[in-house]
């Protein structure tokens, strides 16, 4: 049995937005609850009123429109990877799902919930960072679109206002000669909370095979929240993906990581596995580009 709270169950989005406009404090939005119910049990949620979003099924979608992929906030991880819109080019989401949790978690956890939970262990965040994703939020007064980096302001903190809800996340379609991958390391293969996670986006020139664009995001670049390893990206950009370059990148990455010990694992362990994890993700990403890039 959970501690007591009240719950508001809106019939539709308009009713929800009006309610949020009238109740700008003491409420907590809940999608399907796979993370939030634990946090209620651990007494990390102070709000006395929960607002149930689970009935707003119109926000469960994956669409491709004019070169943009749009994912509704209430899309579950399972629905995301089952979507016919996201073909092999988007296997990065299958990377996430395969290590996200067991089927019972993947079936309920939502994309919007993962973004809004905004902690260092949310696996979709590094992927959305390297994809350069944006998020759309809506209030009674209208909508606004923010870059994911501006949306995530700190640990468990986002730029969302009390009267707003997250509607969708979107990013540009992956071009040819570009690929994306995700890897993580945790305690248990099926229900991992990441000690470390990593996502890499890579775009190479068809002719020269040089790296045109690379984006790297890990959950321990900043202590608070997943973020980009911009110095390491800069070190690799324009170069061939040689063993030497990768070693240089690892040296750079080590200087960018802000590793600490916590109840999950030690700083030393993270130091040892971070380069391995990065290399693994980079190799996976380059393999998706077909050619043997790593020489």
């Amino acid at each position, binding site marked *: 049995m959970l501690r007591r709270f009240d*719950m508001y169950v809106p019939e539709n989005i308009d009713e929800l937005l009006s309610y949020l406009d009238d109740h700008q404090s003491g409420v907590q939005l809940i999608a399907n609850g796979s993370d939030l119910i634990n946090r209620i049990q651990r007494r990390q949620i102070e709000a006395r009123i929960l607002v149930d979003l689970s009935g707003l099924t119109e926000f469960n979608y994956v669409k491709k429109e004019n070169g943009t992929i749009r994912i509704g906030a209430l899309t579950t991880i399972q629905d995301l990877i089952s979507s016919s819109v996201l073909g092999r080019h988007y296997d990065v989401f299958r990377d996430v799902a395969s290590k996200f949790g067991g*089927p019972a978690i993947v079936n309920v956890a939502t994309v919007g919930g993962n973004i809004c939970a905004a902690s260092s262990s949310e696996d979709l965040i590094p992927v959305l960072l390297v994809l350069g994703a944006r998020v759309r939020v809506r209030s009674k007064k209208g909508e606004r679109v923010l870059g994911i980096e501006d949306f995530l302001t700190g640990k468990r903190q986002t730029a969302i206002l009390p009267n707003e809800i997250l509607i969708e996340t979107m990013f540009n379609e992956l071009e040819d000669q570009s690929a994306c991958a995700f890897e993580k390391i945790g305690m248990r293969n099926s229900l991992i909370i990441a000690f470390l996670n990593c996502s890499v986006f890579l775009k190479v020139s068809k002719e020269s095979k040089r790296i045109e664009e690379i984006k790297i995001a890990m959950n321990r670049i900043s202590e608070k929240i997943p973020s980009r390893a911009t110095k390491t990206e800069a070190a690799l950009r324009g170069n061939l993906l040689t063993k030497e370059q990768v070693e240089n990148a690892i040296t750079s990455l080590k200087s960018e990581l802000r590793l600490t010990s916590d109840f999950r694992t030690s700083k030393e362990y993270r130091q040892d596995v971070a380069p391995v994890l990065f290399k693994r993700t980079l190799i996976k990403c380059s393999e998706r580009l077909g050619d043997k890039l790593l020489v």
Partner: protein
Amino acid sequence: MSKHLLKFTVNGRDHALVVESHERLLDVLRDRLGLKGTKEGCSTGDCGICGVIMDGKLVNSCLVLAIQARNKKITTIEAIGTAQNLHPLQREFIKFNAAQCGFCIPAMILASKNLLDHNPSPTDEEIKEAIRGTLCRCTGYQSIVRAVKAAALEMKKR
């Protein structure tokens, strides 16, 4: 506002009951409907022992608020087979000694059934994938995988 009318279907029977905001699906199944086959393990979504099928998908009933199950169809272990006529999965679990203490078995059977409902001829890997969120501390899983595979064959013969 703390009380809500919950209408849903459990094991083919329609129910309408008043639930409080903080009640979980697990609480309602066990304490209101007396369906004690669904077990409470960790209560945090880690062990999968409280697994039930909701609208054709495996969920942890400890992580679903009761009111969020409104208008849904729930299947619990009570709907799988009868003492006189066991489900093929139950028969094969017995045959392969796939249950020892038995605590995870309701969820294990449901996770396996949900797999076979969607994929009648799973590979070993697919079976492992389907049950990977359901912890068993006794069997080491090998006998469970063999039992599910045998049940799949058995069900295809019918």
